[in-house]
């Protein structure tokens, strides 16, 4: 899953050897994804990726590449938030 998302994001970026938008011809079928992972990919389902454990930096990159604003994907992820009880040394 991580590899598929990483490759898809990078395929659409403007890399030094870029020859066009690689996302247009990206074949996710070559990756060994579970049915849940494949469904998340096909549906661009940020919340599902979060629940499946996709690294948060990749979630962010994927969301940006899909064109989701932070506000949009925050709404999708908010239900999975937990109240923070811990305190840092800077907190009075």
């Amino acid at each position, binding site marked *: 899953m991580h590899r598929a998302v990483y490759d898809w994001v990078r395929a659409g970026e403007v890399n030094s050897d870029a020859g066009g938008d690689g996302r247009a011809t990206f074949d996710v079928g070559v990756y060994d994804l579970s049915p849940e992972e494949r469904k998340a990919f096909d549906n661009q389902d940020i919340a599902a990726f979060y629940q499946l454990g996709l690294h948060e930096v990749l979630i962010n*990159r994927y969301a940006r590449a899909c064109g989701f604003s932070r506000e949009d994907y925050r709404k999708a992820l908010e*239900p999975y938030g937990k109240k923070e009880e811990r305190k840092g040394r800077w907190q009075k």
Partner: protein
Amino acid sequence: MAEIVLAYCSSHAPMMSSQREAASEEQRKNFFGALDFLKQEAVDRGVQAVVVLSNEHYTNFFLENFPQYCIGLGEKNWGPTEEWLPIDKVWIPGHPGLANHIAQYTLDHGFDPAFSHLLELDHGIMTVYFELDNDMKLPLVPIVQNCAVPPLVPVRRAYEFGKALGDAIRSYDGLERVAVVGAGGLSHWIGNPRVGDINEEFDRWFLEVLESGDLEQVLDMPNEEIELAGNGNHEMRSWLAVAGAVSATQPKATKLAYEAVYPWITGMAVAQWETGLGETGLAETNGTAATAAAEQREESLA
């Protein structure tokens, strides 16, 4: 031998380029005013090359090979990679002489950085580098760090790497005037339910620590505590590395700007370690100059 004639850190939220107008006018004036001031300082001080420390965002590396540090040795590097980032995609000149010297020096002094002859640079370096040199012609030595994927370098180790980096630059005889810049932080969350939050209390405390020069307050901070100010707060390693690079001559930073820019989901700060002008009234001088630079920018945009 080279001297570090300019040292500063800046937050690098990509929206500072892609959604610039989403910040309030006052926030833009303060934040970009500080960066404009530093850009002029680089010109006035005759900076010949810049070393920029930032962090890897799954642009060059994936999980099968994820170095803690990677130094860009190449004649040139490419960026920015993000198709949506409104900065021209160009080849950026490197400085192989300085970069190789940094790599060898740090290898000789207890660190094991990876190297690359071609780094693809994302917003992490490019937003801040672009604000330093809009023409993107200033030779750049990029250093990308792992600030995202455990296991992570302890922050004290990042500071110590910065000390070695500073010593490396000061022992290089191929240049005279070098800038060191850290890009990233301060508090922000990405890719999780708290995206959009900013921990202003942490940001202001962290900047006060940098201004005090008493970095022991932060150098033992464990990852779990760092993340109380966001998973993006791991990027404090770039700030502490720059602090380390100049610690021998200037342990105290000067805050030039801090704005909690919620549309950019990040506590946006700029701080400088004065290395070239000595101890004469830096904060007041910088504040005045930064404000003047901000006003000039606003006039040019009007």
